[in-house]
């Protein structure tokens, strides 16, 4: 497949901080312990060649997988402010500084627009490496602006979720991003533009309970953890063990909350198939009222 080759040097986020990678040459699968060279892993889109485990990857990796070569990053200039001057055992400021250094990103959400097999798409993608992919005001604002961009440019929207949930250090501001993103998504829906919600491992908490579950089409990578409450909290609440496969993508598919599960190597093809089914030209006003 041609896009395998496009994953060039510099897209090493999935492997950068792995201790079990001597000299950055080898990667050990966290599930089956198979050793793979970084080069080989990258060619396999960071999927373990032996057990098919989908290693967590970055927003840049997803942009490279999805877009036809060139794409434009949007809204990188938006950054967090520590309005609450929040501090626990560590200050929020220093958590942010660590995250900037570690990820070279400005927050846990990155937005880019480009073409997928020649069809336009705007993608907002989360990075788990940035404070656990937590959702604060920047995430909400980027989703809001991405939706404005989609409406102005008549492109469909895809959000790739990968998050532990709301960013506690932004307290109620982070909570309200759930309402903000959901409210803005109603505007996209009214414009007749499709929204694809792609959930990757993990998608939990306030992210699942807002934009992640609101896709016109909801889908996920194999075996991704998807839920509202974390497994540990549930276990403590119900005081018994959780069934095998609980809160996995397959479990959600079985219970009717996903449209399908897609293997990473089929992602681009699947997205362009879907995009081809939607007419994104502005509908006439009659159609708008009918919706």
């Amino acid at each position, binding site marked *: 497949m041609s896009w395998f080759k496009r994953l060039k040097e510099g897209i090493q986020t999935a492997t950068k901080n792995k201790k079990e990678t001597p000299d950055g040459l080898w990667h050990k699968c966290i599930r089956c312990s198979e050793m793979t060279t970084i080069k080989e892993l990258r060619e396999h889109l960071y999927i373990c060649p032996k057990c098919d485990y989908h290693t967590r990857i970055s927003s840049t990796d997803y942009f490279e997988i999805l877009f036809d070569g060139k794409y434009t990053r949007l809204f990188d200039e938006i950054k967090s402010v520590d309005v609450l001057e929040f501090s626990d055992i560590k200050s929020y400021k220093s958590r942010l500084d660590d995250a900037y250094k570690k990820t070279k990103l400005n927050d846990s959400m990155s937005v880019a627009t480009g073409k997928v097999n020649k069809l336009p798409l705007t993608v907002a993608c989360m990075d788990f490496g940035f404070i656990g992919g937590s959702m604060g*005001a920047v995430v909400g604002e980027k989703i809001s602006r991405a939706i404005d961009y989609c409406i102005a440019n008549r492109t469909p929207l895809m959000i790739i979720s990968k998050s532990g949930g709301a960013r506690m250090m932004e307290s109620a501001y982070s909570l309200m991003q759930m309402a903000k993103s959901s409210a803005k998504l109603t505007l996209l829906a009214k414009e007749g533009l499709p929204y694809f919600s792609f959930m990757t491992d993990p998608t939990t908490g306030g992210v699942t309970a807002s934009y992640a579950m609101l896709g016109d089409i909801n889908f996920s990578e194999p075996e991704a953890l998807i839920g509202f409450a974390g497994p540990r909290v549930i276990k403590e609440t119900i005081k018994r063990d959780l069934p095998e496969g609980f809160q996995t993508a397959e479990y959600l598919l079985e219970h009717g909350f996903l449209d399908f599960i897609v293997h990473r190597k089929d992602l681009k093809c699947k997205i362009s198939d879907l995009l081809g089914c939607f007419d994104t030209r502005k509908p006439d006003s009659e159609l708008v009222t009918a919706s």
Partner: protein
Amino acid sequence: MIYLDFEKPLESLYEQMEKLRDVEAEGTVDVAESIKELEKKIQHTKKEIYSNLTGWQRVQLSRHPERPYTLYYIEQICKKFTELHGDRYFADDKAIVGGLAKIDNLSVMIIGHQKGTNTKSRQYRNFGMANPDGYRKALRLMKMAERFNIPIVTLIDTPGAYPGLEAEERGQAEAIARNLFEMAQLKVPVLCYVIGEGASGGALGIGVGDKVFMLENTWYTVISPESCSSILWRSWDHKEEAAEALKLTPEHMLSFGLIDDIIKEPLGGAHVDPEKMAKTLKAHIKAELGELMPQDAEERIRIRIDKYDNMGKYQIVE
């Protein structure tokens, strides 16, 4: 009366007062002057205690076992309340109640979290922690209200959406998300009141409206102080610090622009004089609906969405 730890100074004063009343009843010694003095002292102590409440003390008051809950307010505020049960898919969640009623001559759909008042009813109400069925029932009632142009009032009081196995199985996240989405576009006025605990998505799931208010001794944020302590401090012992750090009081929420106003409670909390609290709430609902009802529906929705779109602080860097 149940006294919270920080209310202990009052307890002994009330005990003294009781003794004085007994003496007064005997009628042999004139204690009128002493009673007057003590009453002054009680008022003074109350003001001192309740005007400097910490975040954690607000949390404690919001959970006061004698605090009025949704059904109490409905009974006091409304006439001809008909409770409407069930989500039409799976169950009737007892942690969220709702129904049609009249506030004076105005029809309303009133919906709220419901907690129990004794061990048995607390369990029956699942401690005010709703399952997906509760959120879906609430949405069903709201959509019905919309069809008949009936305004919606929600009363929020939950320690969170229920983190159970079946809740996940039936899509807790989807149920809450759907409510946020649908409430943003409701064509009728929506008023939301935090009357007790406003914990996270479980609260927000019935909390998207044109105006959101908090009673004075309530809290509203993304996580309970206990859970925040356990995650960020990795121990349950830092709930007081977490409550401070989260800035979860109505005053903070108002200063952040995340709520529209604070509603005064009787001195000492809503449970001290629940009837008075209900009267205040009723007058407030009537006044707010009076302002919202004449607005054009599309305009109201536009203002509602703009309000949420403006929530959140960030900076623009080069």
